[in-house]
């Protein structure tokens, strides 16, 4: 079977706080014959702090990553972390649309910026192979789920080119392809507080509570994400979220790769499910009773 080869930019989250995302991503990639080639000697993308300190730094760091990928012969680069993806995509967009920025970055990096690899997120990558997922499903993921896209994956529209910025559906389609039932809900693209998780945890608790409440009100049995920060703010910070909700909630938060992994029959251990703070458990389905005539 022909395999799809893509450049892979892990970023700090995938080797740190979101190892479960990395583990499940690798397991699913293997099952779907996607070869993830790590960018040699990749550096930090700048993420939340870069653009607060210096605009040029926030562009130059990701461009440096992309130049390394280009040097390694990569045509496209997938960044699973939504923040990494957003920085890489924004930087690409800026050097492509502003000759001045391009020149400044070239000066700083002392390299000529030629063609850069295409940047994509994990949803875009999985959407490319969506047709091959269905036939490989061994155990349907038959849960009602709220697909939570967050902010960085889809915005700003001119940079990301995501399907529908305010009402994205790509992740819903993936979940449906493995047997899940995505719900229509209000906070698909609301802010979770992102990196305020560390500096102002109470903000994350307040925002997370709104997201969790609407998902639970609409009978979601799981929340599916594709961003390490969305995940930690709803999972790691569930205590804070629960405090704002004044209610103990136990709806698990899964990465899209974990959902697909479960449906493909990949063992839980390889998907890093045990690393979650909210245990991955689903309400027992009523067993169909046989009607005796």
């Amino acid at each position, binding site marked *: 079977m022909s395999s799809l080869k893509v450049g892979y930019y892990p970023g700090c989250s995938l080797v740190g706080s979101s190892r479960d995302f990395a583990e499940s991503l690798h397991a699913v990639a293997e099952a779907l014959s996607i070869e993830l080639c790590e960018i040699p000697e990749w550096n930090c993308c700048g993420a939340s702090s870069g653009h607060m300190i210096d605009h040029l730094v926030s562009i130059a760091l990701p461009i440096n990553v992309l130049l390394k990928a280009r040097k390694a012969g990569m045509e496209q680069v997938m960044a699973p972390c939504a923040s990494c993806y957003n920085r890489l995509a924004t930087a690409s967009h800026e050097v492509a649309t502003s000759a001045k920025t391009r020149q400044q970055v070239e000066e700083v990096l002392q390299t000529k910026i030629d063609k850069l690899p295409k940047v994509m997120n994990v949803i875009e990558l999985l959407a490319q192979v969506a047709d091959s997922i269905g036939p490989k499903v061994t155990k349907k993921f038959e849960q009602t789920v709220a697909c939570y896209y967050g902010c960085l994956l889809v915005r700003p529209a001119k940079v990301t080119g995501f399907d*529908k910025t*305010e009402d994205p559906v790509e992740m819903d389609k993936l979940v449906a392809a493995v047997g899940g039932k995505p719900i229509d809900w209000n906070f698909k693209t609301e802010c979770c507080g992102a990196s305020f998780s560390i500096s102002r945890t109470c903000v994350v608790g307040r925002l997370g509570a709104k997201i969790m409440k609407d998902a639970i*009100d609409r009978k979601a049995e799981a929340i599916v994400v594709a961003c390490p920060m969305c995940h930690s703010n709803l999972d790691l910070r569930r205590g804070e979220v629960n405090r704002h909700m004044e209610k103990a909630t136990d709806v698990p938060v899964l990465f899209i790769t974990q959902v697909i992994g479960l449906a493909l029959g990949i063992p839980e251990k390889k998907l890093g499910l045990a690393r979650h703070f909210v245990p991955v458990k689903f309400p027992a389905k009523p067993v169909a009773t046989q009607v005796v005539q």
Partner: protein
Amino acid sequence: MARVGVFICHCGENIAGTVDVNAVAKAALDMPGVVHAIEYKYMCSDPGQTMLKDAIAEKKLDGVVVAACSPRMHEPTFRRTAEEGGLNPYQCEMANLREHCSWVHEKAPPTTDKAIDLVRLQVEKVKRNHPLKPIRVPITKKALVLGGGIAGIQAALDIANTGSPVLLVEKSPSIGGHMSQLSETFPTLDCSQCILTPRMVEAARHANITLYTYSELEKLEGFIGNFKATIRKKARKIDEKLCNGCGVCQQKCPVKKIPDEFNEGLSNRAAIYVPFPQAVPNKPVIDLANCTYYKTGKCKACEKLCPTKAIRFDQEDQIEVHDIGAVVLATGYKTMPVSNFSEYGYGKYKDVIDGMKFERLASASGPTGGAIRRPSDGNAPQHVVFIACAGSRDRLKGVPYCSKICCMYTAKHAMLYQHKVHGGTATVFYMDVRAAGKNYDEFVRRAVEDDGVKYVRGRVSRVYEDNGQLVVKGVDTLLGGEQVEIRADMVVLATAVQAQDGAEELAQTLHVSYDPYKFFAEAHPKLRPVETNTAGIFLAGACQAPRDIPETVAQASGAAVKVAGLFSQPELTREPIIAVVDRQPPPVFSHCVGCFLCKSACPYQAIEEESIKNRQGDVLKVVAKVNPGLCQGCGTCVSTCRTKAIDLQGFSNEQVFAELMCI
């Protein structure tokens, strides 16, 4: 020997700021044939034109080059001046030193060099000019008005009142347009129907107006004063002469659940219907897509019950061709479909509606009889949020321009709501309130101060439903960027004004230019606002740009005056810039070999065949002949002619080659 005068215009700073005009004048004097060259600040002004006239007489000039702006701007002006000075107007040429030189280059010696070259080209050309005579063509003094909204009605009435016949063509079954759907109108709150319906009736009864409702323009051929319009009268399936508008058919029609277009889908209509009770003409039409007879071959309930036996199931579309002298485009606008505003939940939540739906709710002729009732459950909403700029001034998801009417109609909506639902709360989210117009700002202040409408300056990020209640989440930028959440019973979106569907195709059919948003383009944004670049076609109303009613009516009257002005002339003169097949003496001579490649190349069907006969009447040769009435001077035939037998008057091969060779 030629005696050419060169007149260089500074155009204020437009040309002189970049080009060394004095150097151009000096260089011009050295050109062969030039006997006079001057520069002046505004050549097009009265003193400037006088200089030109005087110089023609004093220096005995036989050709004039005005080096100024684009010939599109002032060629007619200077040709007229040259004529007044005693020259044939076509002995005057323009060198475009503004658009082709000073505006596009920086101030530097090469710019001046280019200006000198441009002057030299025209000097070489004008030396080879021949006196030409304008072509005289008759005018058909009958106008076609396309679109039966308030713009079309006003234009048709004004033209008809000058005594000229008018064809008023409307694609829907009734005239009246968007204005007939409106409740009250700003800034006076007078009822839209009360001021519009008398005009509709007047248009229908006017002796000089022929109404073509449920009709479309299929084709427009010809040119100013001599258009040929092909109109398709779609079959209503009704004999209009017999029908007396009693309405029995629509009462008895068994298909009754079709969303009513006039009420924006807030109520239903039958498959045979009159769009609204005040429709003009008050004759029904059968909706073929929904009629049971056309779907299954059975029913004919209307035919059986019609007291005047006016139903005609076998009626066909009719095609009529009319000679027309002028056209007024008044095809109107549409509001942006809101399906792309998923953040506002449109389509998902029944109580999120657009402005036009609110108009129907507030209208006495609407589905609720003018009571504000929300669509989901028919209750009076206690809190309504109005969102201005839904799509307007939004580069990313909407249109970059301001739709102009929304600030005013939103204020009107909020005001009407406060008048009709006592104790209710109306909140308006806005970016800026743009209320420039007579009594407009006063009207908005009245909404705020007298009626207590709450204005929140900020954008709405999301409208969502929480336990069956709409929640509007936005920001109040005057409260230091504080987030606000309002629990509302109904949300009204002031959606952007856009060009009508099919505007682009229509513009291409009529050869009228349009802007990137498909609004028809005026010939000059300030000085020729109701004319198009195609002579004889004029504009009225919102097909040109978002407009409110007062502006639309004013523009429609303006367009009507242009038509009346055109019709007041006994005949038209056309530029003699047309192709001619050489027929130099002796009479039987022509280079044309009769291959007629030109005939297949001509986009205007202007090439005819002509037989050259001897005295005995024997045909010696069949050659091409250009019909001067149809030729538009495009030059396509000239370039296809194998024997160089065709030339374009005013742009002959000799002239163009002389221009090229002098660079």
